């Protein structure tokens, strides 16, 4: 566990000694604000809630989370530091956990910095803060799931751009599987059971509950299993490269 934390600390330090962290934070906050207040029509809704804020997160994260995750392993492979890291007395699982944890904490920090929006709704009305908290938890799980997918694609290639594109495509699938226009299309020719199965893979379906303030164990389990599966696949991919 100590080693996981040592790796995570180094990784987090790496974000903040380069401009990556600051550029990301600024862009994330700007876009989150723009979508909430302008595109999401926050004020016109007259609701004391953050639906206008959270509803955009699956789309916002679609572009921004792969940008954080793409370098996790591809950079280590390109520069050769993966050899240094994995010949130290750590298991591959510890190394993956450490690096993943660092980038998840970083996304959690970005999300935490959206706190003014919580203050805003509390000043303007009387929102249910429990619901807001559930929304934040859901958003964090959503970011974690995308990030795990990015971590996996990042392990596939030395090229960060390739990792980014692969990751966006996979995450887009995770959204579209439950996106209304797509499910409507599927309903026309597929059985309802099939449509439900496909939709069950969607982050939208599982993120909805959190936005409404419902923390359903099935939704949590869904996100945790996406994370678990993607990180397990990351380990298999990294071991696969070395096995030749």
């Amino acid at each position, binding site marked *: 566990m100590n080693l996981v934390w040592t790796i995570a600390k180094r990784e987090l*330090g790496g974000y903040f000694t380069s401009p990556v962290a600051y550029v990301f934070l600024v862009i994330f906050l700007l876009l989150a604000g723009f979508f909430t207040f302008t595109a999401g029509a926050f004020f016109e809704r007259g609701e004391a809630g953050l639906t206008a804020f959270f509803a955009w997160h699956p789309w916002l994260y679609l572009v921004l989370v792969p940008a954080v995750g793409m370098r996790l392993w591809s950079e280590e492979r390109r520069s050769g530091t993966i050899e*240094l890291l994995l*010949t130290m007395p750590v298991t591959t699982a510890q190394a993956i956990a450490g690096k993943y944890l660092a980038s998840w904490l970083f996304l959690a920090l970005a999300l935490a910095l959206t706190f003014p929006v919580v203050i805003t709704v509390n000043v303007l009305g009387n929102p249910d803060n429990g619901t807001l908290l559930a929304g934040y938890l859901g958003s964090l799980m959503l970011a974690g799931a995308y990030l795990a997918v990015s971590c996996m694609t990042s392990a596939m290639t030395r090229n960060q751009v390739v990792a980014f594109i692969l990751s966006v495509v996979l995450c887009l699938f995770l959204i579209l599987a439950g996106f209304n226009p797509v499910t409507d299309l599927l309903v026309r020719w597929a059985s309802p059971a099939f449509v439900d199965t496909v939709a069950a893979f969607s982050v939208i379906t599982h993120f909805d509950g959190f936005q409404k303030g419902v923390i359903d164990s099935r939704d949590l389990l869904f996100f945790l299993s996406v994370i678990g599966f993607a990180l397990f696949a990351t380990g298999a991919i990294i071991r696969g490269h070395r096995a030749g």
Partner: protein
Amino acid sequence: MIRIDNLVKTFGAKRAVDGVSFSVERGEVLGFLGPNGAGKSTTMRMITGFYPPSSGKVTVGGHDVAESPLQAKRLIGYLPENAASYPEMTVRGFLEFCAQMRGLDAAARGKALARVVERCFLESVLEQSIDTLSKGYKHRTCLAQALIHDPEVLVLDEPTDGLDPNQKHEVRNLIRELGKTKAVVFSTHILEEVDAACSRAIIIDRGRIVANGTPGELRAMSDVAGAVTLHAQGASEAKLAALGRVEKLNGSFRVYPADKSASAELTRAIVALADREGWKLDALRTEEGHLDEVFRRITLPDTALPDSVKRSG
């Protein structure tokens, strides 16, 4: 300390390492020689547990690298090829990180850091970020990383690559010094390093060991080993030919004895001959042989080795 048994690594159809066996004990410095792509780095990556072998076995300090990798890795300090390190970190930060990964506590880290910084001459760049360093400093930073936990086994992949002649000299001295108490394996394609630092050398070509011995033994495999070269006024090729095969070099002669080990007798015979004929001897020297000649001969099998040893393709 390091024991390698019939190690094989295949990448697809290519056999990068093909049945390599050797062992290195404490107090030994093993030089690993070979042309580019011979399988040096691949072998080292298997010793350090980065690549799992396709077949065969590596044990380090009695621990099987495949079965108990963590115990084995704890004993090893590794300098990877190209000396990769995290460019955005400072030298101090990077070495601190490596020390933590090696499980050193705060007090031990301070001491270890001071020790490797002194050994690798990093004092002046300690607070600089690694991407601002010259190649030599980057290299030594990574070398410092390999030494931070004072490991019993050192695996160094081209430790002098990219250094200037003074730095090369320093690193060779350091390797020789470390070799007194540790088991050291280092790869190189610079042949002088074998003499400068190794107690034993292995030459590897196309994944196979083609020679294994002390630098002296390897040199003795050279064609010129045991020959006597002389420069004398009045010397004649015809007279020398009675003693052995004679090669005429630029103003001097080289005489090859029929038996390589008979060079002392040959020297005495030449002195006696010069005395009898009244030649004025200016220089007389017994050839030890040249490593580069041996290296070229045994790593170019298609031109030098008999057909039975040649490999197809």
